[in-house]
């Protein structure tokens, strides 16, 4: 299955989230956009959150590090971390080629109180990227 990037929601800080219903619960799969990965280039390190951690939308859950700089990763949604992509930090070189499928970073069981009002759809996110140059 290949994830369609045009159907995802995006945070201004470049994380994408794919919201899906699983067993009556909303699960958000989170990754980093292809645009952001291209800007970062040459990734060397990624720090993932612990399973079970409760995240609030906008909260820092980890960081990704390129040769030149450290960038924090922010959760686009509120909820509990139910899965992390453990293989990812050892395979960062694959991330650039496949940011939306192989590149998932974590899954969150989205809390009831969560709101996606602050997130951007694909068109709005693309506009933001175009303006950032």
């Amino acid at each position, binding site marked *: 299955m290949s994830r369609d990037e045009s159907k995802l929601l995006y945070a201004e800080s470049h994380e994408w989230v794919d919201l899906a219903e699983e067993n009556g619960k909303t699960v958000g799969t989170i990754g980093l956009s292809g645009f952001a990965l291209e800007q970062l280039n*040459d990734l060397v390190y990624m720090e993932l959150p612990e399973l079970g951690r409760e995240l609030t939308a906008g909260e820092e859950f980890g960081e990704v590090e390129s*040769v030149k700089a450290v960038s924090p990763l922010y959760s686009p949604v509120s909820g509990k971390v139910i899965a992390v992509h453990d293989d990812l930090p050892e395979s960062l070189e694959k991330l650039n080629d496949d940011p939306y499928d192989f590149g998932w970073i974590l899954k969150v069981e989205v809390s009831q109180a969560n709101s996606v009002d602050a997130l951007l759809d694909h068109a709005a996110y693309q506009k933001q990227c175009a303006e950032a140059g």
Partner: protein
Amino acid sequence: MTTKLAKTPLDAWHRANGGKMVPFAGYEMPVQYESIVSEHQACRNAAALFDVSHMGRLRFDGDGSEHFLDHILTRKVSDLPLGGVRYGLICKEDGGILDDVLVSNLETPSQRRFHLMVVNASNRDKIIKWLTPILDDFPTVTMSDRTELTAMIAVQGPAAMEACKRLFSFDPLRLKYYRAVITDQFAKPAIVSRTGYTGEDGLELIVRAEEANRIWENLLLAGRNHGFIAAGLGARDTLRLEAAMPLYGHELNESTDPLSAGLKFACNLKDRSFIGSEALVKIAEAGPSTVRIGLKPDGKRPAREGCPVLDSKGQRIGEVTSGGPSPTLGYPIAMAYVDRARADDSEFKIDIRGKLVDAKPTKLPFYKRPKS
């Protein structure tokens, strides 16, 4: 406050060739084109071309310019032979470092002698301000800022010298390490020196600004079959870190003295008097307070500038000044200042944003080019 950023004579080339431009020391400079890692590797394995036109170029003319330079530098310049290049520091009275510079003793084709000083881009204005009143005591010496009239290009890597051969009427291999010459090779005079900031063999060229693009293109053409590519400031930084070369603003600043920075080789203290010499003699007698060491943190996470360095018991004994992944070695490396008494410890810890990581001391430089 917004200040308009300056552009180097090669600005249009960078933009047309994918250069990712960032503000650096008042200039818009390419941090990378394709990728820092591939540009780094090209320099280690073949050769890379760097636009370093942002570096300041100050020319000193007139009788006694060598005595003026002796007065402001930690290294002696008056015994520098014609064509010689010397690394030295400009210090304040208290020994704090104002800048680290290269000074060349040169002669124009019309046999006018002068000295050229290459200063850090970020320090150019400061150094001009520092030197101007001192020059009042040397009325025969004049200083002129040549930075905007010229461009500076570095060609660095194992293939650099061979590929450059056909561009020069002389064999660049005859130019010894840390020697410079003025050549009229490019129809206009150019200064060619066998110097660099990457740990590789290579040349640095100072050319007229209007000639920069033609020479840059010629260099790329000459290196086409040797794997030459253009490299940005990102690769320049990872290369100099592997070579353990200090960088002003990181290893060096006004509250660090050259001896604590591990630059004793760049201080001629015996029987000399220069600005800062009295303070440096005292520091040399007492022993410097810190030592610059190399560290290899465990794991993949790089330690960055500002990360505290602790001893094995967790007591803070220093700080990382530069750190990052080493593309050549495949693991993270860091330079740090630690208390002199602890410099020979066999185990350290680095506090990387709240997490303590074990680190082993490692000999500087991290990378040394194979002997050819």
